[in-house]
């Protein structure tokens, strides 16, 4: 069976989750195809062969330079109609979640978003996904084709499996597309929260908008900076930094919570992290019961000391 992975790239650089999705797709299908949409991306697309894409379909068009959900849905739906895959896999980024939702409605196909596991049972795709802010995991069967599945970043391991990966240009039927991107403000070089291997977060314990100690630690580790809702509500950090049930869900290898008490809504966004470290001055703080390692102490002393120690050890 054929599985189609829809790649996500920014300026010809693929998101890590695209490689993770290609790896997961290999466990489902005998034939993995990749689809890349964008403008001037043909050369970059060849890279996907390293992760086992037997065919790399490239829809290259000026009108696809920026992602807009209507143009991308039109083009992808047309190509899916031709490839006729049993499953379509997308990275569950902000863009990927929206894209897969619109695509599944277009195709009248079953969809499961932000999945943490996916497998084949007979000829049906079975996916596992968290619900109720991670309090429940649901195993769901997607009946009908193609099964549209988005995968949570940082959850599947990307493994190379070189294949010929022939790049094939396909027609981009843009059709009726009414949304237009007027501008973008992207911080280049900034590590995205949901894809970061390490996240350092600050909460109300930071006491103000000066997050420099957290940023220094994040710099030393090559980590992204997150925040609790309290820190966002205080106006210390932008809403896009918020981790939790009404913010982002992150599953890094290492999550360091500084001055965060560990409310259930915060845990909802980070409890699938592989290792959790808590730094808090209150030994009774609930975060310690979830943390693999905890240090009781004043974060203004502990965090800079950790930064120094890490610099020494690199």
């Amino acid at each position, binding site marked *: 069976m054929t599985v189609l992975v829809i790649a996500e790239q920014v300026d010809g650089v693929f998101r890590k989750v695209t490689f993770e999705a290609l790896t997961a797709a290999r466990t489902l299908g005998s034939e993995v195809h990749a689809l890349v949409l964008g403008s001037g991306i043909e050369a970059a697309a060849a890279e996907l062969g390293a992760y086992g894409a037997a065919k790399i379909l490239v829809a290259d068009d000026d009108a696809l330079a920026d992602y807009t959900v209507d143009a991308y849905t039109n083009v992808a739906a047309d190509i899916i109609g031709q490839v006729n895959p049993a499953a379509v896999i997308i990275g569950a980024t*902000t863009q990927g979640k929206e894209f897969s*939702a619109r695509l599944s409605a277009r195709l009248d196909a079953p969809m499961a978003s932000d999945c943490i596991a996916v497998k084949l049972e007979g000829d049906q795709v079975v996916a596992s996904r968290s*619900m*109720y802010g991670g309090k429940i995991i649901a195993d769901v069967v997607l009946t009908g084709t193609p099964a549209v599945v988005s995968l949570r970043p940082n959850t599947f391991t990307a493994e190379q499996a070189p294949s010929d990966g022939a790049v094939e240009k396909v027609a981009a039927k843009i059709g009726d597309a009414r949304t237009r991107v007027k501008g*973008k403000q992207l911080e280049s070089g900034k590590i995205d929260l949901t894809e970061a291997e390490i996240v350092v977060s600050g909460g109300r314990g930071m006491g103000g908008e000066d997050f420099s100690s957290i940023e220094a630690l994040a710099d030393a580790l090559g980590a992204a900076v997150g925040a609790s809702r309290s820190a*966002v509500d205080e106006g210390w950090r932008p809403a896009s930094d918020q981790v939790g049930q009404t913010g982002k869900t992150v599953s890094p*290898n290492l999550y360091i919570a500084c001055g965060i008490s560990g409310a*259930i809504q915060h845990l909802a966004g980070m409890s699938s992290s592989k290792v959790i*470290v808590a730094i808090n001055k209150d030994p009774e703080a609930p975060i310690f019961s979830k943390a693999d390692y905890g240090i009781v*102490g004043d974060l203004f002393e502990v965090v800079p000391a950790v930064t120094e120690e890490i610099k020494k050890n690199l």
Partner: protein
Amino acid sequence: MEILVLLKQVPATESMIAIAGDGVSIKTDGLKYVINPYDEIAVEEALKIREDQGGAVTVVTVGPAKATEAMRTAMAMGADKGILIDPGDTVCDGLSVAKILAAAVKEMPCDLIVAGHRAVDDDNFQVGPAVAELLGLPNISMVVKEEISDGKISWTCTVEGGTTEVEAPLPALISTQRGLNEPRYASLPGIMKAKKKPLETKSLADIGLDADSVAAKVVVKGLRVPAERQGGRLIEGDSVQTKVAELVKLLKEEAKVI
């Protein structure tokens, strides 16, 4: 400006969620229900647009009769009227709900639809874009700022690593994100007034659908509770220095994450 808000009633985020005897649903007794937090932001944004541009705000919900509590709360905040579509025993997935909502609003006057970007119970991230697709409307998600003029809407939305500004002609659908606004509280006079506002309940048949036409394609096989994290290891030491040195050593040698 005719504004529709897609509103879902969900268990409060602090709820303890337990799996019911059938293994595929949750125990609902004793749960406290609220408006989905993002839909509360949607109601607030709709009210702001109405205050600015005139018109009416209608909340549309797919759910059981109990969901009217959430709709009344939205009306107490200021929404003008509500329509509940009660699918009865029909088991719905995200796409089923989108089909029901699309059929219900298709005949209604509408310049703008406001939804949340996800419901915090099923976490599907699906219904908003799916409704827009079924109605043939442009949509955009994770909106943190919007501006309407000359029959066009401009949005700023958050994406990985920053924000983008997008524009589309009305009618359109937007999905809210935190940061768009701070929802107002329902006032006491608001609560009194809400009781008298029109709230209509419809069945699937009333909107020209039947159970087959919206049958769920995603079937829950089973629910489980994730393994509890075994935390609680505090690092001891005489000084901050020794504790920190021990932590970094453990992260390197035991956890192997740095």
